[in-house]
């Protein structure tokens, strides 16, 4: 019952928040003007099952302005220490998996004094006997990962099925204390929204993705991606951090138990009634 109330609350809140949203965005506009033109960010492109059973996920990389450094792509698999690198082919790269793999991916570069880091987690269900191609990163490169500041999704690094309507908590991992109060924003389909900080922990931000009509209409496996990003300044350097993740439509938000019970009772009563009516007809009477 509580669950239900909660759902209705969301159903009521979403339009309410939605109507106030534009004003809030206006108010904070200054904080996210770097989005798109000035930021490295990833786009989930096609996921493909290959005839040999491997699964690949392709990403499109959006370069920031004045990018000077090479864009590095590093990832780890199934929480193991090996770090692999993937070469960038123009603005895209693909990750292959031959077995079910939980992948933690970092894409980063530097533009002038600005460091760009994009982080993501995903699960690929490869099922193949031919091994996916992997290139181990140079130890120097791999060592970077340890100090790389990044946003992470709290508590669900390997859980890939993020749904609309369910709160996600993001936090920050850095080697330094940021100068300014940290603010997180989320880019959801070119709409930028600020995230509210957790009242207990100012470095944790909660994001409840709103239900998406398109996702609802599409199948249960359909996804869209959202990016949570922030900008930090430290030691005269600017850090543009982002976390990109895939969102599925809500699994349970639209389940109507009352209607289910009515349909169940209806089916039961109609059939039982039919049976009883049929047997009440005394075919043996003269």
């Amino acid at each position, binding site marked *: 019952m509580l669950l239900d109330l909660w759902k209705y609350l969301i159903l009521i809140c979403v339009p309410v928040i939605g109507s106030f949203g534009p004003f809030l965005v206006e108010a904070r506009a200054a904080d996210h003007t770097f989005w798109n033109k000035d930021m490295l960010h990833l786009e989930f492109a096609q996921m493909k099952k290959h005839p040999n*059973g491997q699964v690949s996920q392709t990403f499109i990389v959006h370069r920031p302005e004045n990018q000077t450094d090479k864009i590095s792509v590093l990832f780890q698999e199934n929480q193991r220490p090996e770090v692999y690198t993937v070469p960038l082919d123009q603005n895209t790269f693909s990750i292959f998996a031959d077995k079910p793999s939980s992948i933690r991916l970092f894409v980063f570069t530097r533009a002038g004094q600005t460091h760009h880091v994009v982080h993501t987690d995903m699960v690929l*269900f490869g099922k*193949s*006997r031919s091994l996916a191609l992997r290139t181990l990163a140079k130890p120097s490169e791999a060592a970077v990962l340890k100090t790389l500041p990044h946003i992470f999704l709290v508590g669900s690094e390997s859980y890939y099925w993020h749904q609309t309507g369910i709160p996600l908590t993001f936090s920050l991992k850095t080697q330094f204390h940021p100068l300014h109060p940290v603010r997180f924003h989320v880019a959801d389909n070119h709409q930028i929204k600020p995230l509210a900080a957790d009242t207990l922990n100012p470095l944790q931000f909660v994001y409840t993705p709103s239900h998406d009509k398109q996702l609802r209409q599409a199948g249960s496996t359909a996804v869209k991606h959202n990016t949570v990003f922030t900008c930090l300044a430290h030691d005269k350097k600017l850090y543009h951090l982002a976390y990109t993740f895939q969102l599925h*439509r809500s699994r349970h938000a*639209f389940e*109507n138990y009352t*209607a289910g019970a009515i349909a169940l*009772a209806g089916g039961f009563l109609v059939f039982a009634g039919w*049976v009883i009516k049929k047997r009440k007809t005394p075919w043996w009477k003269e």
Partner: protein
Amino acid sequence: MVERIRLFSQHVFFIVFMYGGRFGIHLGSALPCFSCPFVQGCAGHCYLMALQRTHVGFQTAFEVFFSSAFVHVLWPFALFLILFLPLSKLWCAWLCPFCLFQDWITLIRKRLHIREFSMSRQVRNRLKPVKYILLALLILIPLAIANLGLHPDWGLPFCQICPARPILPLFTGNVSNFHIDMTNSVTIGFTATAMILTGVFLAGIFFKERFFCVFCLLALMHLFKKLSPFRFEKNVHACTGCGNCEQMCPVDIADVHLEKGKNHMPGAVDVLTQDCLGCMNCVESCPVDNALVFKWFDFKIFSSSRQYMTRKWSSK
């Protein structure tokens, strides 16, 4: 006697299949019985799930058929055959948890002295193709999703309307499958159908013993019966045609009763039909010695005996 052993076996396997996963039993996803994957902590689940997905997570595109990945389509099938062959139809009445659920309901009806709803041979015969139609849809719909752009919410079409899906999780305290999913028109269609069908089947099971088995897709296992060492034979020249087998059969199979063999050919005729559940009620109620025999290779598991039959029914 046999009935009691069967009930015992059903209960043991009910517990094993429904709760075994919690104790580390994992029997894979190609079981030839209705152990439902929607039951949390089940010890393995029904082959139909694998059959509908044909590849974990996704529907299968045509090109996969001609690739090495097809082994992953075949593997569950091979596992299914390995599990099915030694026991054949015994899976139904001796192991299947959903069958036991139906038996419980029937037991309640029998206790209440409410009579069964009678289905004529004609109706039974008309319902026979339903299974084949369902099987065809079960294979064609996932293919259509992967290759013809059918809406992905058509995925797992059988599971979505299967009454076992809402009912069996009840035994782990899970009522979450009793809903209509308002997400979109496809889900509304499927879940509404599922709820109505569940209602119909609950009523059906109450008024007709093993009503669901008439439509059970796994019953089509009989297509592979020739490969199994398990046989159900009838000695056609011993049969007096008393019809007890048909009367006592929970799914009213007439073939066993009517089978007369071909032109006076001597000996036994295979009478394992698609609806047969291997419950052996017919053998238990057959008054002719050795007229009906369940065999495993040449070993007689159970054969009819007048003495057994007489004793069973006079002491009941």
